[in-house]
């Protein structure tokens, strides 16, 4: 291999394209941009403003974050549900006045005062909520109007109590501690807010009401159709928003013990900036407590920093406005392009140099013949896509189908047919265990078992998650073929963890090694991955030695042997490399050899493309999937190999009449039963000179007593 090839191989192996998409599809990447912005703000203002990181600076900042963070969470609630609340500044002022009046003027006990304040916040929120949720007014204008309204109420009431508030003295230690006490150098209010934030985080991300809020904001009509009371949810978000604002106002009042005409003025703009900077989307459906808090810290540091740098009010409003616009712009672009980027980087080709294939001129055993032309056709038109077949002790033939059913054709003439069991997913590899249960690989579902009494039992559908995976790969997506070891362990292949039944040929364009071999142990019902990163591992057959198995790697065109027990436990050896086609299933033959089905034949153009991952990458990004170059999976053949990898004979359907494409075959009493994943029939071919008494269940498990 040339140095250039090596470089290409390393590039596509260690910098795979799909990792970008996988990382982007994680929810936390949504916070990446705001978090970087936070670090930048900290770095810039931390360096120009040395007072920020002193003990007093932190105490002061923590106190402000406590209030501002609550406000940001309040607005986030409303915004996730698809609304907006501009009246929070006015509600804030009203509530701060309420709690101070209750304490200083009327000398009410603290819990009563706080209760009244929360009530005022809830009433203000309920006014917004009824108007917007039930009367379906536009949130923006409505809250703009209630902003003016609440503000004028505040301005009308404030002069009546202003002097008494300043003169009065609440008789409460708790209140003083809340405002001026500290714990570990931080104010109590900070810990109180942190607790409230934590509760909201759990509610929003892990509870039914929280999901309802996001559902309403994400798709109002769908939420309604799903049975969510949309109007109530919208209304309640405003009520809770009002109560959260009241809580923030209480902390503010405890800290400053006075209110003025400018309390809460213009607050809606800075809170809105914080929420949007954090990455909460205008129009709903996306947002979190973490985003709100990140945004709050950025805005607080920004405004405090500008204040201390001596920037005048209008200029700092200008800067805030520009920051708000930039944040919204970035957010709009991010939301618009993220999914596109995930989609376009999904197919992630790797470098693979296939071993040169053997052609018929070099090895006459591959010469095309017409042996499969005279097969007996079973169930023509009655079955769609029998990927694998099985034969029980009585000689009945079983096959899977694309419709998620297991068909049974009854011996001896196979003209009668019944649905043996309905599983529900595309049924692939199948084999009988020692109790005559039919163990089946089901695409998209996992490993299942059908008892002789037709009961469908799930054996397993997940394995252990691999350590280096970015997205969770524990779920089994495409279980393909299985075999059962003498001790009862089921070894099955998962052809690809990235593609499903419907787009499995796309995995060929990647040829990355997305597959794995998994072992299910019925004794302790455990599932674990035994081999990883195989290139579309497909057929599996256990050798009679009880310690090793053969498996096909389809896109690598090779057959390997894996030892699961014994001296060579854990080792893999290539038994046969450079096959002229793509091997699918492998099964035992009566003479101790193995039948291998080639699902399709290789071509030099595609072989060459396998060494050009960049070309394949451009192909997948620039042209429509219908025009991609795919492996030929229309014409194949059956070959017989020995356990050491010697090719003994090949069977073809030259005319392409009955079985041009085969994915599986099983020998039974001198006949070969043939299935194909895109066929509409099962074939039965008489093997010249085969042992007419040999059957697979007997070979595996012995004659029934």
């Amino acid at each position, binding site marked *: 291999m040339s140095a250039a090839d090596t470089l290409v191989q390393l590039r596509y192996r260690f910098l795979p394209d799909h990792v970008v998409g996988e990382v982007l599809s994680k929810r936390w990447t949504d916070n990446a941009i705001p978090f970087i912005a936070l670090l930048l703000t900290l770095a810039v203002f931390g360096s120009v403003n040395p007072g920020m990181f002193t003990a007093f600076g932190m105490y002061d900042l923590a106190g402000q974050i406590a209030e501002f963070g609550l406000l940001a969470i309040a607005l986030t609630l409303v915004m996730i549900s698809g609304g907006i609340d501009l009246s929070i500044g006015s509600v804030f002022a009203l509530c701060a006045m309420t709690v101070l009046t209750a304490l200083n003027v009327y000398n009410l006990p603290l819990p009563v005062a706080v209760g009244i304040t929360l009530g005022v916040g809830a009433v203000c929120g309920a006014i917004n909520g009824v108007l917007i949720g039930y009367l379906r*007014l536009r949130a923006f204008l409505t809250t703009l109007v209630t902003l003016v309204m609440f503000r004028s109420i505040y301005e009308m009431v404030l002069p009546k109590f202003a002097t008494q508030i300043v003169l009065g003295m609440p008789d409460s230690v708790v209140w003083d501690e809340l405002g001026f006490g500290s714990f570990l150098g931080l104010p109590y209010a900070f810990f109180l807010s942190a607790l409230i934030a934590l509760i909201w985080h759990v509610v929003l991300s892990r509870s039914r009401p929280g999901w309802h809020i996001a559902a309403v904001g994400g798709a109002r009509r769908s939420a309604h159709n799903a049975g969510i009371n949309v109007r109530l949810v919208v209304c309640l978000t405003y009520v809770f928003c009002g109560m959260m604002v009241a809580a923030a106002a209480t902390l503010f009042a405890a800290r400053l013990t006075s209110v003025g005409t400018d309390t809460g003025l213009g607050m809606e703009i800075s809170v809105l900036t914080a929420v949007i900077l954090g990455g909460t989307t205008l129009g709903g*459906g996306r947002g979190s407590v973490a985003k709100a808090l990140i945004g709050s810290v950025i805005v607080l540091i920004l405004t405090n920093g500008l204040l201390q740098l001596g920037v005048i009010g209008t200029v700092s409003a200008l800067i805030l406005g520009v920051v708000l616009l930039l944040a919204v712009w970035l957010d709009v672009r991010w939301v618009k392009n993220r999914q596109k980027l995930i989609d376009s980087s999904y197919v992630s080709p790797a470098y693979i140099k296939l071993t040169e294939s053997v052609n018929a001129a070099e090895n006459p055993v591959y010469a095309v013949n017409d042996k499969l032309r005279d097969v007996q056709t079973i169930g023509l038109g009655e079955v769609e896509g029998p990927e694998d077949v099985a034969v029980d002790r009585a000689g009945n033939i079983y096959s899977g189908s694309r419709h998620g059913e297991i068909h049974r054709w009854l011996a001896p003439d196979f003209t009668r047919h019944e649905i043996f069991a309905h599983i529900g997913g595309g049924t692939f590899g199948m084999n009988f265990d020692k109790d005559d249960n039919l163990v089946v690989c089901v695409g998209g579902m996992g490993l299942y078992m059908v008892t002789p009494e037709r009961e469908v039992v799930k054996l397993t559908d997940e394995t252990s998650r691999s350590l280096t995976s970015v997205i969770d790969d524990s779920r089994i997506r495409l279980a393909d073929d299985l075999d059962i070891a003498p001790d009862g362990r089921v070894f099955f292949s998962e052809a690809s963890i990235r593609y499903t039944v419907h787009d499995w040929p796309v995995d060929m364009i990647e040829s990355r090694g997305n597959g794995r071999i998994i072992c299910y142990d019925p004794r302790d019902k455990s599932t674990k991955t035994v081999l990883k990163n195989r290139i579309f591992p497909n057929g599996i057959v256990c050798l009679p030695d009880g310690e090793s198995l053969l498996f096909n790697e389809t896109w690598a065109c090779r057959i390997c042997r894996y030892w699961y027990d014994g001296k060579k436990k854990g080792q893999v050896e290539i038994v046969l490399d450079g096959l002229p086609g793509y091997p699918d299933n492998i099964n035992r033959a009566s003479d101790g050899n193995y039948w291998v089905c080639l699902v399709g034949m290789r071509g030099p153009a595609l072989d060459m493309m396998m060494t050009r991952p960049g070309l394949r990458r451009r192909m997948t990004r620039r042209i429509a999937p219908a025009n991609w170059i795919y492996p030929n999976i229309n014409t194949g053949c059956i070959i017989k190999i020995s356990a050491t990898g010697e090719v003994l004979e090949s069977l073809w359907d030259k005319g392409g009449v009955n079985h041009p494409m085969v994915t599986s075959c099983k020998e039974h009493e001198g006949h070969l039963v043939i299935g194909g994943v895109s066929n509409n029939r099962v074939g039965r071919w008489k093997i010249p000179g085969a042992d007419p008494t040999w059957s697979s269940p007997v070979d595996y498990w012995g004659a029934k007593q």
Partner: protein
Amino acid sequence: MSVQAGEQARGSQRKGVSLRFSQEGIVFLLTMLMFVGFSILLPNFLTSGNVIALMRSVSVLGMLALGMSLVVIGRGVDLTMVSTLVVGVVWAVKMANDGMPFGQALFYGGLLVAGFGMVVGLIVAFAEIPPIFTTLAMAPVIFGIGNPFLFKQDTHNAPQGVTWLNELGFGASFGIPNTILVFAAVALVMHLILRYTRFGRSIYAMGDNPAAARLSGLPVRPITVAQYMMTALVAYLVGIVILGSNSGINSRLAYTTLVYDVLLVVVLGGIGLSGGRGGVRNVIVGTLFVGTLLSGMTILNLSLTAQNFIKSLVMLLALIADTVANPRDEQTSQQGDI
């Protein structure tokens, strides 16, 4: 029956329906009631001085509302109008007071204002940020550019010796104050643009269904930019009128809730915020209503705060009426339309 008569019958029928049941008709009736009520109950209301003052204040509001209606019909909104007019006019006045000829200063001010409008339009059209946010964020940005960088004082007197400015503010032609004539002229021009030009019809098409307008080949983005530039220029004209009638301008105007009053006029008049509906007549009706209300409250000697409270109450009622008259359709309303 002749064809003409049939058309007349249909026409009167349509007119009757629209006046009786539309929001516009309701508001017009309320205005008349309020006017009659104030005239009877408030002794000073129907004096000529008050009516002129009413008309004057009303025409400023009305012109701003005409500018606003242009974007609202196109399914947008412009909250930067007041900041724009303040910054543009104050800058022009300051330059004139520093020695530049007033005409030239006004020209530069106009360029600046058009530039602001263009920036807003570009952000809305190309960055695809909802107009309500763009303009909410741009208002402090525009004022922040104005206040420390172009001027620093709050109050600016009109330049001396500009007779036409005085005429504009205080003069009258044919017994009607010039301010009101300017309002009438702007209304007429706006009406002609909206009804009879390709630009005007495109605005209606965009407001009705932006996606359809775009798919049918209308240059949606350039039209959006042009809309915001026109609105900014109308605001600038209003600023000049304010300058004339007050002999000066105070930049603190930008801090008032004037722009919400403008929005109140537009919504009350019956121009739906979902776009594509209404016209100049609606603005005039809305202007008369709000003007009468403000004037009555001023004569009643209500405090500014109480006036704000009543105004916001009326506006809430107007919003509710708007929602009832133009219900939002769950099927077609845009997701995330707030």
